[in-house]
C-alpha cells in the first residue's frame, strides 16, 4: 500500500532522514520506535505533506503521494499537538475538520456521531473542548484523524502526557483501526505500547531504520537468553574457576571482574544451579539481577544508547 524509498531530508547540516525506506501493507500497524531526534516526526510530516525539500519517493498504491491532492482524503493524521479549536465543542470541531476532507455533507454528521462514540466522547459532544481533560483532548485529536475513514493513519506520539486509562483507550482504537484494514504508522517512545499494539516494529535512529520485524523477530537479534548480573565478595579468578565446568551452550560467562560478573543463561532453570555452585565454593553473593530479553535490550544493542537518552 505505502512504499517509501530512499527518503532523505536535511535541516542544514543535520540529516533528519537518511535514505529511509519502508513498505507498509493494508491493515498493518507499524510501531516506529526511536529516541528524540531519530527522525520520526520528520517522516510523519513528509508523509502528511507539510514538509517539502526532500529527496526520495513515496508511493501510495503505486501513485506518487504528493502529486495528487485528493490522495490526502485517504490519509488521516493525528499530530503530536492538540490541533483543534478549544473554543468550539467536540461536535463542531469534528464537523469543521471533517469538512476540510471531501466527506459528503450528508455523511459528515452521522460519521461524527459514530466517531465520538468510538472515542467515548459521545456524552460530551456539545461541551466546549477547553473543558476537556488531557486524555479527552487526546481522544478527540485521534477522532479527528479517523473521521474520514482513512486508508492510512499516521499517529505522532498520540499517548504523550495522558493517564493510563486514556492511553489504553487510544491503543485499543489503534488496534481496532488496524484490524479493520487501515494501515497505521505509530511513533512512540513507549516500548510497552508497541509490544502490545503493533504487528510490526521498526527501530530507527539518526534517520534510518536499524532493524524491523515482529516483536519475536527483533528479540532474536539479541538472542533469547537471560542476562544475569552477580555482585558479591569474590575474586574474578575464583569466580571463573567455580563455574569452569558449567560453561557451555547454556551458560556463557560474558564478563568477570572482582566482585562483579555477568552471564548469559539460555535456560532460566540453570540459574539456581549456578548459585549453588558459587555457595559450594564459598563465594559470597550480595546481589543478583536477571534481565529477560526485550525491546529495551534490542534497542540498546542496536543503538548503543537507551531509548530515553
Amino acid at each position, binding site marked *: 500500500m505505502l512504499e517509501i524509498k530512499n527518503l532523505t531530508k536535511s535541516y542544514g547540516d543535520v540529516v533528519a532522514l537518511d535514505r529511509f525506506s519502508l513498505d507498509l501493507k493494508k491493515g498493518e500497524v507499524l510501531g516506529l520506535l526511536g529516541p528524540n531526534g531519530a527522525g520520526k516526526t520528520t517522516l510523519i*510530516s513528509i508523509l*502528511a*505533506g*507539510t514538509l*517539502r525539500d526532500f529527496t526520495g519517493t513515496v508511493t501510495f498504491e503505486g501513485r506518487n503521494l504528493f502529486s495528487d*491532492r*485528493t490522495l*490526502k*482524503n485517504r*490519509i488521516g*493524521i493525528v*499530530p*503530536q*499537538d*492538540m*490541533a*483543534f*479549536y478549544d*473554543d*468550539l465543542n467536540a461536535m*463542531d470541531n469534528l464537523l*469543521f*475538520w471533517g*469538512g*476540510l*476532507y*471531501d466527506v459528503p455533507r450528508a455523511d459528515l454528521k452521522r460519521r461524527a456521531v459514530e466517531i465520538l462514540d468510538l472515542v467515548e466522547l459521545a456524552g460530551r459532544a456539545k461541551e466546549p473542548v477547553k473543558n476537556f481533560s488531557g486524555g479527552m483532548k487526546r481522544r478527540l485529536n485521534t477522532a*479527528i484523524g479517523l473521521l474520514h475513514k482513512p486508508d492510512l493513519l499516521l499517529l505522532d506520539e498520540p499517548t504523550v502526557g495522558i493517564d493510563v486509562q486514556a492511553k489504553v483507550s487510544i491503543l485499543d482504537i489503534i488496534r481496532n483501526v488496524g484490524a479493520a484494514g487501515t494501515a497505521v504508522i505509530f511513533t512512540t517512545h513507549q516500548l510497552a505500547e508497541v509490544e502490545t499494539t503493533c504487528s510490526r516494529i521498526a527501530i530507527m535512529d539518526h534517520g534510518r531504520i536499524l532493524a524491523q520485524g515482529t516483536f519475536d523477530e527483533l528479540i532474536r537479534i539479541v538472542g533469547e537468553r537471560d542476562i544475569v548480573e552477580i555482585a558479591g565478595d569474590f575474586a574474578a579468578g575464583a569466580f571463573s574457576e567455580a563455574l569452569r565446568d558449567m560453561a557451555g551452550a547454556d551458560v556463557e560467562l560474558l564478563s568477570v571482574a572482582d566482585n562483579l560478573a555477568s552471564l548469559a543463561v539460555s535456560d532460566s532453570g540453570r540459574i539456581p544451579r549456578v548459585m549453588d555452585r558459587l555457595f559450594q565454593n564459598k563465594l559470597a553473593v550480595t546481589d543478583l539481577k536477571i534481565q529477560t530479553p526485550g525491546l529495551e535490550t534490542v534497542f540498546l544493542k542496536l543503538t548503543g544508547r537507551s531509548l530515553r537518552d
Partner: protein
Amino acid sequence: MRRLLLILGNDVRRHLKAPWAIVIFIAIPLLMTGLIGVIFAPRSHSGQLPPIAVLLVDQDKGLASKLILGSFDVDQMKKMFQVTVTDEVDGARRMKRGRASAMVVIPKGFTLDLLEARPTTLRVVKNPSEQFLPDVVEEFMATMGVMLSGAIQAFSEEVKGLRLMLDGPVERIPWETLGPEFGKAQKKIAAAAKYLNPLLIGLKEEETKAAGAKAQSSMTDIFSIILPGMAVMFLLFIVQTLMRDLLSDREDGKLRRMLTTPVRPLEVIGARILGGWVMGVAILLIMVAFGTLVFHVNWGPFGFFLLLVVVAAFWTAAFFALFHALVRNRNQAGALGAPIILAFSLFGGSMMNPEVMPKAFRAVGIVTPNRWFIDGAALVREGRFPLASLIVLLVSGLVLLALAVPTLRRRALV
C-alpha cells in the same frame, strides 16, 4: 472555494462564541465619541457668552451711582449682564455661595467725590471659581470709570452747578448764576453730539468663513467629525485581533493539520484575509448604524460612504496579513501591533483634528489609513465622492496584499 468558505465560517462562528472583545472594541469608540462630543461641542447655537451674574451694592445712592445702575439697564447690557441690587452683607453671602461672577460696590460719597474731582474707588469683588466672566465685569467697570472720569473733567465748570444743587434745598440755589453754566454745557453737548451722533466709528459683528466651512457647528457636526476617526482606529484594533488566527494556528499546529487535508495554503490564507475584511466591514457598519441612531451623525451619501468603508476594511485586512506574516509570534504581534495602531491614530488624525496638528505630524499622517479615511469621510459628508482616499487605500492595500500572500504562503509551508 468550498473549503475557503468553511474556514471563514468557522472563524466567524468562533469569534461570535466569544464576542466580548469585539463588543468592547465597538463600544469604546462610540463612548469616546459621545464623551468628546459632549465636552467640546458648542454650548449654544449663537456662540455668545451666557449672561453674567453681577451683584451691585449701592452705598452711595447718588447721581453717579444711579448713572452706573442705569448703564446696566441699556438693552445691549441687559443681554450681557444679569444685575441684582443688594446690600454688602447679602452680596458677600451670595458671592460665598458662588451665585454671581462679581460684586460691584459703589462706596458712600461716590457722587460727591466725583463732583469735587476727588479720587474715589469702585470695588469689584471677583468669583475665584470662574475663569473669564469676573474679568469681563472688571473690564466693564474699568471702562465705566474712565468714561465717568473723562465726563467729569470735560464738564468741570458745569459740575460746579450740579454740586450747588446737591448742597441744600433747591430754593436757595441762585438760578441767575447757574444760567450761564448750563448754557456752556448745552454748547459742549451740542458740539459733542456732532461727533457722537451718529458715531464716527461703528462696530459690525462678523465671522470669518473658511472655504467649505459651515457658519456654525452643531453637536451633530462634532460627532460626525469625531466618529470616523475613532471608528477607523478601533477597526485597526479589531481586525488585528481577528486576524491573529494567522499566527495562533501556525503556533499551535492547527495550520499544519489543515495542510494535511486537501485544503490549499492559499485557501487558508484567503479565508483569513477575507474574514478580516468582511468582519471589518460588518463592524464599521455597526458603528455607522450606532452613530446614526444615537448621535444623528450625518455621513453624507451612503453609497459613497459604504465604498469608503469597504476599501478601508480591505486595506486593514491586507495590512494585518502582512504584519502577521512578518512577526515571529503572538507576543511580538501584541507588542508591536498596539504601538503601530496608536501611531497611525495619532498622526492620522483619529486622536486630534489634523488642522491643529504640528506640520510634521500632518506630513507623517499621509502614510496612515486613518488620515485617508477621515479625509474621505469629510468629503462624503459634504456630498462629494472621496476619489483620492479610495485610490490611495485601494492601491496601497493591493500592494500590501501582494507582499503578504507569498510571505504567508512561504511561512505556512516551512
